C-alpha cells in the first residue's frame, strides 16, 4: 500500500518523522472513541473489573438487549427519547438546510439594497457563541410560549449563521450563465432557486448537515424542555450515567449509539463536505 503522495520538495526521513508524529497524536485522538466502542460490548463483570481493562475480552451484545428490555418497563420508555431526538434533529437540520440555502442564494448572486449589511451581520454573528444570547433567548422563548415544546430547539437551529455563511460562499461558484439562461426562459426566481440552484449545491447540503446534525443530535434540551416525555436521548444518557452501576451497561450502549451516528454520517459524506469547505474562506 502506498502511504504518501509523491510530491516535489520532500525528503523521506522528515516525511517518516512527520508521519510517526501524526500516528502518535492520532492514537491519542482515538483512545476515547475506541474505549467507548469496547465498553458497549463488555459484559457487566468486565465493566467493573479491577484493575480496569481497556479492551473487551468476551464481547457480548447483552447491553443492547438490556437497552431494548428497559425500553419497555421504565416510566418514559427509552424509545420515546429516541423519538424526540429524531424529531428535533430531522426537522431542525432539514429546516436549516432549506432556509439557509434560500437566504444564501440572493446574497451570493445579487447585489441589492441591504445585501452587504446583512452579510456583514452574519459574519459578526460567527464571532460569538450562543452562550452570549442564552438569557434573552429564554425570555424570547417564553414570550412566544415555546418553552417545553420541540419548537424551542428546532426553530433557533434553523438560523445557524455558519450554515448561511458556508452556503453563500459555495453558491458564489455557480456559473452566472446557468442562472441567466433560466431567466431568459422565463423562470421565476423561486423556480430558479428550487430547480437549478438547489440541485447544484448538494455537496453544501451535506456540509450543513454535518455541522448542524451533531449539535441537535447531542442536545440535552437544556433549559427549554421540562417534561420528561419530551426529553432527548442525550438527557437520558446523562440520567443513566448518573444513576451509576445498575445501568452502566445500558449507558455504554446508548453512548455508542449517540457517538456513532454523527461519525458514520461524516464518513459517508466526507468527500462532499471537503469539496464545500474549500470555498469557506473569508475574502478581504
Amino acid at each position: 500500500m502506498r502511504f504518501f503522495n509523491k510530491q516535489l520538495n520532500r525528503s523521506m526521513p522528515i516525511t517518516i518523522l512527520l508521519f510517526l508524529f501524526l500516528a502518535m497524536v492520532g492514537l491519542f485522538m482515538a483512545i476515547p472513541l475506541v474505549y467507548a466502542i469496547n465498553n458497549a460490548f463488555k459484559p457487566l463483570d468486565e465493566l467493573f473489573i479491577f484493575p480496569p481493562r481497556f479492551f473487551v475480552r468476551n464481547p457480548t451484545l447483552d447491553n443492547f438487549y438490556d437497552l431494548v428490555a428497559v425500553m419497555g418497563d421504565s416510566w418514559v420508555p427509552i424509545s420515546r427519547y429516541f423519538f424526540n431526538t429524531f424529531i428535533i434533529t430531522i426537522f431542525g437540520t432539514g429546516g436549516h438546510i432549506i432556509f439557509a440555502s434560500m437566504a444564501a442564494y440572493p446574497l451570493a448572486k445579487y447585489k441589492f439594497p441591504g445585501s452587504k449589511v446583512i452579510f456583514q451581520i452574519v459574519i459578526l454573528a460567527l464571532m460569538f457563541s450562543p452562550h452570549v444570547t442564552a438569557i434573552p433567548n429564554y425570555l424570547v422563548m417564553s414570550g412566544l410560549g415555546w418553552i417545553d415544546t420541540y419548537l424551542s430547539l428546532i426553530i433557533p437551529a434553523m438560523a445557524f449563521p455558519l450554515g448561511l455563511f458556508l452556503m453563500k460562499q459555495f453558491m458564489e461558484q455557480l456559473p452566472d450563465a446557468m442562472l441567466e439562461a433560466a431567466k431568459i426562459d422565463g423562470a421565476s426566481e423561486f423556480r430558479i432557486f428550487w430547480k437549478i440552484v438547489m440541485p447544484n449545491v448538494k455537496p453544501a447540503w451535506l456540509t450543513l448537515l454535518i455541522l448542524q446534525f451533531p449539535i441537535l443530535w447531542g442536545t440535552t434540551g437544556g433549559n427549554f424542555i421540562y417534561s420528561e416525555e419530551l426529553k432527548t436521548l442525550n438527557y437520558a444518557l446523562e440520567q443513566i450515567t448518573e444513576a451509576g452501576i445498575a445501568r452502566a451497561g445500558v449507558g455504554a450502549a446508548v453512548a455508542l449509539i449517540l457517538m456513532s451516528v454523527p461519525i458514520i454520517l461524516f464518513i459517508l459524506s466526507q468527500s462532499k463536505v471537503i469539496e464545500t469547505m474549500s470555498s469557506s474562506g473569508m475574502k478581504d
Partner: protein
Amino acid sequence: MKAKSMEQPIDDIVYPIKEATRKQSKRKDKWQRLKRDMKKARHYYLLMLPFMIIFFLFTIVPVVASFVLSFFSFNMLEMPQFVGWDNYSRLFLGDDVFMTALRNTLLFAAITGPVSYIACFIFAWIINELSPKIRAFMTVIFYAPSIAGNVFFIWLIIFSGDTYGYLNGILMELGIILEPIQWLRDEQYVLGVVILVQLWLSLGTSFLAFIAGLQTLDKSLIEAGAIDGIRNRWQELWYITLPSMKPQLLFGAVMQITQSFAVADISIALAGFPSVNYAAHTVVTHLMDYGTIRFEMGYASAIATVLFLLMVGTNMVVQKLLRKVGT
C-alpha cells in the same frame, strides 16, 4: 444578469435642470432609485425572509436585549429597574469570583485558541501528504471527537481520582506515583485537564476548512516555485501554501477564537459546577450561575455583554493581524 439598476435614469439626461434644484432632485432620485431597486429585489427579500426572521428573533434581538438589560436590575418577577453602570462596576470591582472566571477564561483562550488553531493547520497539512484512502481515514480520526457528542465523559474515567482511573492505574503500575492523584478535584491539575480535553475535541470546522483548502491548492504554483528555487517542504509551506490559504486561515481563526472563549460544557462535565475553589470557573459558567440559578438577569446580562465584547473584539484584532501577514 445582475440585478443592479442597469437602466440609467433617463430624465437626468433628457432634461437639463438648473444647478439649484439639481441637488434636491438628485437626493430625490437616490430615494427613488433605492425604492425601485428594493422593489426589483422583492423576490430576494422574500427568499431571505424565513431565515432572517428566526435569525433576528434568536440572535439580534437577544444581543441587543442583553446589552440593554445589563443596565437594569431584573429578577424575572419584578419590573426591571434602571441601575446605570452598577452591574458593571459590581462585576469588575466587587466580584472576586468573576475575576477568577475572567482570568481562567483568558488563560484558557490564550492557550487553547492558538494551540488548537496551529494544531488544526499542522495536522491538516501532514494529512494532506497521505494517499487518498489513508487521508480519508485520518481525517475521520482527527475530526470525530468534535462531532462525537458527549463522549468526552470517557475522559472522566481516564482521569478518575481513585485507583480505578486509567491514568492513576498506569502511573501507579509504573511506580511513578504511589497514591492516586485527584486530577479533577485538585486545583493544581484541573484547569490543565480541562484544557487537554478541550484541545482533544477542538479539531472541528477549521480543521475541515484547512484540509479542503490544502486539497484545492493550485499545484502549478508549487511547480513554479520549484523552478524559482524552493527546495524543501518548509520553504514551500511558508512561501506558497500559507499565502494562498489566507481566506481559509481567516475563517479558521474566527471559528477557533469563538470556541476557545466559550468553554463551559467541558469544564462542568469534568470539574463539576462549581468547580473546586472555582479553579475551572469560566465566564460562561459564571453567566450560567447568575442567569439560570440566581436569576439576577441584569447582572448576568452584563456578564454576557462582556463576553460578547471579548469574543468579537479578539476576533476583530486577530482578523486585522492575519490580514497583514503576507501582504
